[in-house]
């Protein structure tokens, strides 16, 4: 057992330093890909969103003409936006023990690709994506949306 423990420590020392994360307390997601101009709008402010930016529920994610971004969420859902896109996180709740909760977003303009996660797997009603005129109920899947 002592040998094993030393083995792990050796392994840890051999690895590069892990990137430290800011506190995740309020976060529902994390920016993993950020190219060109990518912003979040939060409480009336516009903030740049480089890789490592924490996404909170009620944030709006905005990409410029040259921008694209990819985000992972707490329930292992993933979303990405193409250029000229705006996505509003309307609601995100996820109970890690029961997997109950809701994930609602609105694509106001642009293109979105999405892979659903544990919320949609637990309940076919848990995840929705809206546009101005359409509501999508996501039943455990991958898809793309464009809205104008």
């Amino acid at each position, binding site marked *: 057992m002592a040998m*094993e423990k030393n083995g*792990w*420590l050796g*392994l*840890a020392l051999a*690895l*590069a*330093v*892990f*990137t*430290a*994360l*800011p*506190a*995740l307390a309020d976060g529902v997601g*994390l920016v*993993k*890909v950020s*190219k060109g101009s990518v912003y979040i709008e939060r409480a009336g402010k516009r903030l740049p969103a480089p*890789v*490592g930016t924490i996404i909170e529920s009620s944030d709006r994610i905005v990409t410029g003409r040259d921008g*694209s*971004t*990819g*985000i*992972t969420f*707490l329930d*292992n859902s*993933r*979303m*990405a*936006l*193409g*250029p000229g*896109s705006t996505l509003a996180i309307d609601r995100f709740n996820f109970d*890690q*023990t*029961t*997997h109950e909760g809701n994930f609602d977003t609105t694509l106001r303009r*642009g*293109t979105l*690709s999405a*892979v659903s996660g544990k919320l949609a797997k637990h309940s076919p009603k848990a995840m929705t994506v809206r*546009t*101005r*005129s*359409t*509501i*999508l*109920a996501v*039943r*455990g*899947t*991958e*898809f*793309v*949306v*464009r*809205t*104008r």
Partner: protein
Amino acid sequence: MTPLRNMAALLTPIMLIGCATVSKDSIVLLPKADGSTGAIAATRAGEEVVLDSAYASARHVASGKLQRGTEDARKVQQEFGAAIAGMPQAPASFTLYFLTGSDDFTEQSTAVIADLLEQTRSRPFPEITVIGHTDLAGNDAENDALSLQRADKVRDMLVALGIPKESIRAVARGAREPVVATEPGVHEPRNRRVEVSVR
């Protein structure tokens, strides 16, 4: 009501409709990495279109409704390329197994840890969720507590290996997600595990 107000009452709904023009939407269902598809239900003006096969699509037509169709994979790439290319890597999952009723893990599990650390190192701003599971022996309260104990132990080990504790969450699933279906009360080693999900 004055004639002017009557006019306003008539015009308001028309103006509202004018502002909130219907959006022009296209939705395409993609095949998953394993080839399966899942489904999506698109509802517009009270009408539902269900997409449940690879590259099934719903696109707005002049009437304002959605029309069901099937897309060419290459065209989808052209139309949605940047949004598809921006998708973050899928989470990686690792499983560590435990001895009966304890939070000591089996020897085979130590080999998995090297892979887990390598995955963590290779990702930008890695986030780790440590998910404790039990078998169906014992009651819910015991299992929730035991699964959290197992998850905490793995989290502490990962912290000792140099992963910042701020980027690790330990959560308890109790007996809610057995990998092997058994009757209640059955001891099943394959269900006594901790899953480490690396995003």
